[in-house]
């Protein structure tokens, strides 16, 4: 089974400024991490590979520093990685990004399954996974919380929804986006981390993946961000409850009920 996992480098903090001109996040000088949902996608790819054999290829689109995120995925068990990095990709919205990623997946060739995190924690759009499926013309299942059956030509999964889950059987090749209930991502070992730092990491451009330049970057992005604002800061307050243990417990329950938390 050949599995591609798409990963994204995102800011490791919610305290990120927005560029008023470009309406984009200012990423310079901010600690970068692998999008947390993507760690579950990497783990699922590795679990399937360990069980059924095959290969896990990690793909990320971003600036050169996004290589660190691909290497992190390698240290978690992926076999090889590719960084899509080219000025032509700059300014891509989710549609153009998913187009570029779909071109990379076609270039890899022979792919059975594509895993993505359900969404990235910076943009929160949840559009790239479905966008990849649309560009490839493959079926997709989003918000997968469990894989119950894996066959060479189809997989059966639980798709989370607000009321519970749907059981979905999907033919391969397919795109699956995952939620955190799916597995427990492994923590890289020192040995795997060191190996990942030495791994060869090819950088693919738009030309490498035979992408249409008109479908990339700002030109290829139908989305126009008119205005963007950070959410209002949450007010943190600390309330100290004093009294005997029973009094404190009763007061705590009362306070939580007032806030509809119980």
């Amino acid at each position, binding site marked *: 089974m050949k599995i591609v996992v798409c990963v994204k480098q995102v800011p490791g903090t919610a305290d990120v400024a927005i560029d008023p001109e470009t309406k984009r996040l200012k990423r310079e000088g901010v600690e970068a*991490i692998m999008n*947390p949902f993507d*760690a579950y996608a990497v783990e699922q790819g590795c679990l399937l590979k360990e069980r059924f054999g095959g290969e896990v290829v990690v793909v990320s689109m971003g600036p050169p520093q996004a290589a*660190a995120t691909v290497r992190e995925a390698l240290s978690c068990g992926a076999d090889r990685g590719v960084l899509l990095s080219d000025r032509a990709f700059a300014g891509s919205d989710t549609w153009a990004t998913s187009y570029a990623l779909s071109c990379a997946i076609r270039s890899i060739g022979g792919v059975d399954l594509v895993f993505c995190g359900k969404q990235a924690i910076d943009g929160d759009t949840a559009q790239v996974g479905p966008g990849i499926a649309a560009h490839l013309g493959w079926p997709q299942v989003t918000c997968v919380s469990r894989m119950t059956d894996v066959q060479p030509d189809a997989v059966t999964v639980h798709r989370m929804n607000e009321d519970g889950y749907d059981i979905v059987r999907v033919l391969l090749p397919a795109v699956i986006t995952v939620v955190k209930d799916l597995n*427990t*991502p*492994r*923590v*890289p*070992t*020192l*040995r795997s*981390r*060191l190996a990942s*730092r030495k791994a060869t990491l090819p950088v693919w451009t738009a030309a490498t993946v035979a992408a249409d330049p008109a479908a990339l970057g700002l030109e290829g992005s139908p989305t126009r961000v008119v205005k963007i604002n950070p959410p209002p800061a949450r007010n943190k307050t600390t309330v100290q409850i004093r009294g005997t243990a029973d009094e404190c417990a009763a007061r705590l329950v009362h306070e939580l009920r007032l806030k509809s938390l119980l």
Partner: protein
Amino acid sequence: MQQHIDRKVYHIEILTPKQNSEKLEEDLQTFEQKFRRVMDEGHMACITDNPMGMLSFQGTEMIQELGLPVLPEQLMIHLNTFHTKADLDGILATAKQLGIAYFLIVSGDGSERLPRLKGSDVGYEVESVTSVELLKYIRREYPGAFHLGVAFNPYEPAEHEVEKLRRKVDAGAEFVITQPIIEKHDGLGALVPFGLPVVIECWMSKKLSLLSECVGYEIPEGTPYDPPGNLRILIANYPRYGFYLSILGFKTQLPLIRDLWK
């Protein structure tokens, strides 16, 4: 442990490199230098386990990968409950194989990226695994293989903390390491009836304010603090106890403390 105290052997904390270190090779070298220096000087190296929930490398893998010597009476590994069952078993099996004899068992600090042991992992019907269940598990699976110590926090309500310690001792704890103490703390009197060897943590950073969370009240930034001076007072106040030095400055402080405890 009592023999370390009788021989006036310091416990010196060494932090392992963080998983996301951008200068990993340099950090590994620093760790190795500190480790070897502690060994050479006859102290006990105490290697942390994801302190403050920060994803870091494990002590056992550091020793294996760097080919460091294991002198059983000079090495203690911290072990907390934030591991998968497979990782926990791997750490314990490796420790036994390497001849590591001492563990400090703590509940630990979690983070989103750190998995926590489940009750079913260690064979106990509990909602969350604490140091008590971890102690019992190690005693059950590795009878007689390790000397196990636990933490004691005199800043917690005394009745609660003493009861917790009683459960830890019943589960197999053989020695106690306290939270950082500044000069003296009446709460340590509660340890006397247990009759266990006690090692007092001495905070060796000048930034006393970093202890605010630990002690439960705000210590203003810039509060004057003389770490070697505090160690000197602790040695005078607690002649029967050992000393655990955290955040020790290897260049400046290690030469200073050699002659303090005689």
